């Protein structure tokens, strides 16, 4: 059974006169021991997904979901205490920008000790308990690969380099021995050596402790290194999800392709100084969301039909949400996993003649 199961998570934001869907039908599952990457640019709502899972959204935001369960327990139906208990012990989050999520006025040693659950401190007397807390904290720092534990425990957050604070955040998240670690943009702005270290650490935790990781990022190089599966978000919609390998080999959604193309290192044949392929425009703001498929205005293949939200289709565990997927299956060859293929309008797989295409989009 999936550890974390999210189906059709929609997030409504009541504005003046209209209701905005900040997230629209986000669906994914996180299995035991899996590393899942949630990919999206800023404004795609990946942080909102994280906040919806941990219940840190403002109260006037309405969260609706067919399923939002942790180990089969419905997170939305829980009361505050129960939910808090799960967040405290089972799901840990490493937030964006570690230096600003730490308390600037408290020494790090104290902050780390504070994150250790009381159950772990077994000694009776307070001096013994204090000592034990300190030992656990030191152990945690060693676990994440920080050797100078005394130095960092006696310093304040502003004194930390970015990589150390990232590691300390991970250490604090691991203090309660969680089942799921949610890492929100953990490698942003790091140079490659530090990035590799953090990624190695996450991978090691996943292997040794069977920790499930939800890795939220837009750094595709990092993602392909550690993730097993990817879910791509655009503007609050899930556009594509599947195994890393199949997504890299055959991206079906134009947005996924654009993301992959934006990494020059992925294209060995790319001539230096040649222009990179990029989608025009930028991600729209929440107030100006386009109707239907939200990539529409930027999409090179957009047609009339794209004003309707495409339904999620699946080919061998590779899900996509697009009316005109790339790397099309041959026209007429019906895919067994998808009964919608071919029977609606076979012409849509044959995009050579745009005039024909217009006709088919009309009906």
């Amino acid at each position, binding site marked *: 059974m999936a550890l974390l199961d999210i189906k059709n998570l929609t997030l409504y934001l009541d504005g003046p006169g209209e209701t905005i869907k900040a997230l629209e039908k986000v669906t994914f599952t996180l299995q035991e021991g899996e590393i899942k990457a949630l990919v999206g*640019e*800023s404004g795609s709502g990946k942080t909102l997904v994280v906040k919806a899972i941990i219940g840190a959204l403002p109260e006037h935001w309405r969260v609706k979901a067919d399923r939002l369960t942790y180990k089969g327990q419905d997170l939305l139906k829980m009361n505050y205490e129960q939910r808090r208990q799960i967040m405290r012990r089972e799901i840990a989050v490493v937030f964006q920008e570690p230096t600003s999520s730490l308390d600037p006025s408290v020494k790090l040693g104290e902050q780390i000790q504070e994150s250790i659950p009381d159950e772990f401190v077994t000694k009776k007397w307070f001096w013994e308990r204090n000592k034990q807390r300190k030992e656990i904290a030191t152990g945690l720092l060693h676990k994440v690969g920080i050797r100078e534990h005394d130095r960092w425990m006696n310093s304040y957050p502003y004194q930390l*380099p*970015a*990589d150390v604070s990232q590691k300390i955040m991970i250490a604090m998240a691991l203090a309660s021995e969680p089942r799921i670690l949610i890492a929100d943009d953990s490698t942003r*702005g*790091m*140079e*490659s*050596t*530090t*990035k*590799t270290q953090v*990624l190695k650490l996450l991978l090691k935790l996943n292997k040794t402790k069977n920790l499930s990781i939800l890795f939220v990022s*837009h750094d*595709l*190089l*990092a993602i*392909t*290194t550690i993730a097993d599966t990817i879910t791509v978000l655009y503007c609050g919609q899930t556009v594509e999800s599947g195994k*890393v*390998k199949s997504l*890299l*080999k055959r991206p079906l959604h134009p947005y996924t392709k*654009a*993301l992959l*193309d*934006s*990494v*020059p*290192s*992925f294209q*060995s044949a*790319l001539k*230096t*100084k040649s*222009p*990179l*392929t*990029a*989608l*025009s425009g*930028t*991600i729209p*703001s929440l107030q100006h969301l386009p109707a239907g498929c939200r990539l529409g205005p930027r999409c090179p293949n957009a047609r009339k039909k794209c004003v309707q939200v495409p339904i999620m289709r699946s080919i061998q565990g590779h899900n996509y949400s697009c009316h005109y997927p790339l790397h099309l299956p041959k026209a007429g060859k019906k895919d067994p996993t998808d009964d919608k293929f071919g029977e609606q309008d076979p012409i849509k797989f044959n995009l050579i003649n745009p005039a024909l295409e217009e006709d088919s989009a009309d009906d």
Partner: protein
Amino acid sequence: MTKILCVKDLSYTNSRKTGLFSAPRTFVLGPISFDMVKGETIAIIGNNGAGKSLTAKVLAGAIRPSSGSITFITDETSQQSSHSHPIRMILQHSSSAMNPALSLGSVLHNTLKLNTRLDEAQRQEKIKETLKLVGLLRDHYYYYSHMMSDGQQQRAALARALILDPKIIVADEPFAALDPSVRSQTVNLILKLQHELGLGFVFISHNIGIVRHISDRVLVMDKGQIIEAGRTEEVLADPKEVLTQKLVQSHFSLVERHASLV
């Protein structure tokens, strides 16, 4: 190739007193020496705290160097226009680098007003040209920084740098804060401008992939010194110093993993 910039023995010492009796903490940058030819792209890579940003600031004139010289070599055949600043800088976070209380138009206008002897009509004309050059619309003249998206802000920062007709642009991590698709757009824009205007471009980046893609030469910095320099493909293919090897290897280990999947 014509040499346009000659940096010689540039150094800067920053010492900060931490306590009454403790010895002051000093950071010594340089001496740094390098040359730059017309239209060249130089990338600076290195770990955090290696003095990369400081180098950029010293180059752009934001910080006065302790010693050494930065010589800008003008082309004798072409007349230097009256309102030209040879080196301009783009700051790391273009969103916070622009005054939120001023529209893009007035930011650009002030830049011209304070630095050139152009009259009002010429200034407006220049602003119009520059906005078009970086791919913004005439309407963006009236936009404030919060009304623009990341990509547009980056373009605005470029416009502010380009409006004084520089020959060299120094950029401190211009791509780090950008999303992948906007980053590609910016890379394309810079490549295009370089092609059209023959700009020299010095930039700092963590992203070895982009460094490999757009730079001609690379400088590797550590503890205020340039420890390795050379043509990008040569340095990346055969790094001599341990630090460079580490940087390059850790990047390519990520790429290899990708290659093994596809």
